[in-house]
């Protein structure tokens, strides 16, 4: 089984996010973490390899700290990594990013592609299904269980309160959700290996892509500016003993805010 994991380094959920004065960008505190949903993808890939043999390759797109997610993957036990860090790849929308990643996946034969159901920074959740479409493969989204047997995969995915069990022939793409597994903590030997590893890269031309198809130039959606979220007025504390406070809260909800 050759398994490709698409993973992304994202700002730590606790990092401060501020909008630049002119609204053109975000200032984000430089604290990073592996995208939560991608951890499930990495873990699942390793479990499949442990059971069925094969190789796990981690792929990411981005500059600077982006490469850290590849080292995390290697430290956890992945065999190979691939970095797309040419600036032409950057600042793309889901479409341009998925196009680049799908070409990177196709570089070598593969059976399974796993990625988190969404990244916790852009919150787009578009990459998995788009990559599947670019590769003309089936996908199952937000899976919580995956079994591989006889060239087929059976996946469970919760859909609006129901649980769907879906069978797909391989190769196929799966996006991972919470509940699939618990990601392992890398062993120190893995961390050492990851630190020493030379990370291979791929350029746009090696993927058969022109600058116009990539990043901002290849995007269909333009980010015009960032706006602050609606601020609440600040909490109004309701005082008194439990009965008094409860009665006052109910009065406010019924008479003032009219939400009941």
């Amino acid at each position, binding site marked *: 089984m050759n398994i490709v994991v698409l993973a992304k380094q994202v*700002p730590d*959920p*606790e990092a401060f*996010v501020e909008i630049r004065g002119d609204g053109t960008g*975000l200032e984000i505190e430089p604290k990073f973490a592996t995208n*939560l949903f991608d951890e499930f993808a990495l873990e699942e890939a390793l479990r499949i390899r442990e059971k069925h043999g094969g190789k796990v390759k981690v792929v990411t797109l981005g500059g600077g700290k982006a490469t850290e997610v590849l080292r995390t993957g290697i430290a956890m036990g992945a065999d190979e990594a691939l970095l797309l860090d040419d600036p032409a790849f950057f600042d793309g*929308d*889901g*479409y341009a990013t*998925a196009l680049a990643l799908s070409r990177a996946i196709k570089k070598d034969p593969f059976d399974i592609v796993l990625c988190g159901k969404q990244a*916790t*920074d852009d*919150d787009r*959740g*578009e*990459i*998995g*299904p*788009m990559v599947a*479409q670019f590769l003309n493969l*089936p*996908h199952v*989204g*937000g899976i919580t269980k995956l079994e591989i047997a006889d060239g087929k995969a059976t996946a469970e*995915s*919760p859909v*609006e*309160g*129901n649980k*769907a*069990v*879906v*069978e797909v*022939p391989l190769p*196929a793409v799966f996006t991972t959700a*919470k509940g699939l597994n618990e990601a392992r903590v890398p062993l120190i030997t893995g961390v050492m290996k990851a630190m020493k590893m030379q990370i291979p890269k791929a350029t746009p031309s090696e993927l058969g892509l022109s600058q116009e198809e990539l990043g901002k130039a290849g*995007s*269909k*959606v333009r*980010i*015009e500016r*960032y*706006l602050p*979220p609606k601020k*609440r007025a600040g*909490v*109004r*504390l*309701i005082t008194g*003993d*439990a009965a008094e*406070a*409860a*009665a006052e*809260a*109910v009065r*406010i*909800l019924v008479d003032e805010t009219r*939400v*009941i």
Partner: protein
Amino acid sequence: MERLLIFVETKGDRPRKVSMELLSEGQKLRTQGYAVEALVMGKASEALKQEVLPCVDRLVSLTDAVLQSYTAEGYALALANHVRSINPKLILAGATQIGRDFLPRVAVMLGAGIASDATEIRWKEDPVKIIRPVHGGRALSQVSFLNYPAIITTRPNSFPLEAQAGTPGEYVEKDAAMSVEDVKAKVVKVEEVTKGKVDVTEADVIVTGGRGMKGPENFVMLEELAALLGGVVGATRSVVDAKWRDQQDQVGKSGKTVSPKLYIAVGLSGAIHHIMGMDTSKVIVAINKDEKANIFNYADYGIVGDLFEVVPAMTQDIKKRLGK
């Protein structure tokens, strides 16, 4: 005339609430020079037609057998083919698990832009601007499309439900000429885990319990309050991890993002992961015995007190108010 296409997602034989929110939006836009069409997978029930037709000029139902169960490939191909035949400017769908799962494929098929999980659409601006939360709601991103058609999925509970009576549009059933070979995924079965239950993403009222509930048995108290308000019970990550509540009810970064009219946070501290999933709620009430709990920084109203006293007292008061 510019055309809009609204994908109608169903629950049982009725449109989902988020689809009705978009249809309400569509009904308004019909009076502003848009032609509004809707698409539903499978034969439309009478109940669905009654709700949808007053909002649109035309509702098309695709009756192919391969569309009977949801698969991303099947739905995406059917929708993309339909878009090619009617050439709308924008395609709108709810940002539900299904909507967010198959519309990115449609975007690739059509070479179209997609804005996922939008909370606002500014129709009057040219080009149309879409607002969508990023970084778990800590900033909003304003985006527009560079070409059309383009796709928008909208977060449930973000647009008002205000469809009115109106002249019903036309209803058409169509065979999309899809074959089984078009879909490689096979749905083996669909288990109804929570039959008839409203999903947290679509609930108007959510009462969420955290670790302060002390044990799964105490959630009965929240169930009672939620039921009284026509709402549902949500759960924090730690409560789900402790197996007190089902994963489907988890609100927050690794669970679901919700925007109800009323969110009552009971015995939960308000970890940033949780805030990210509920910060767009209209009114937030927090009940916690720790006055320093972070949840109070995000609430409209707060009660510092023992939830085991406050919650039953609120339930009693609401019963009185509602005459129950």
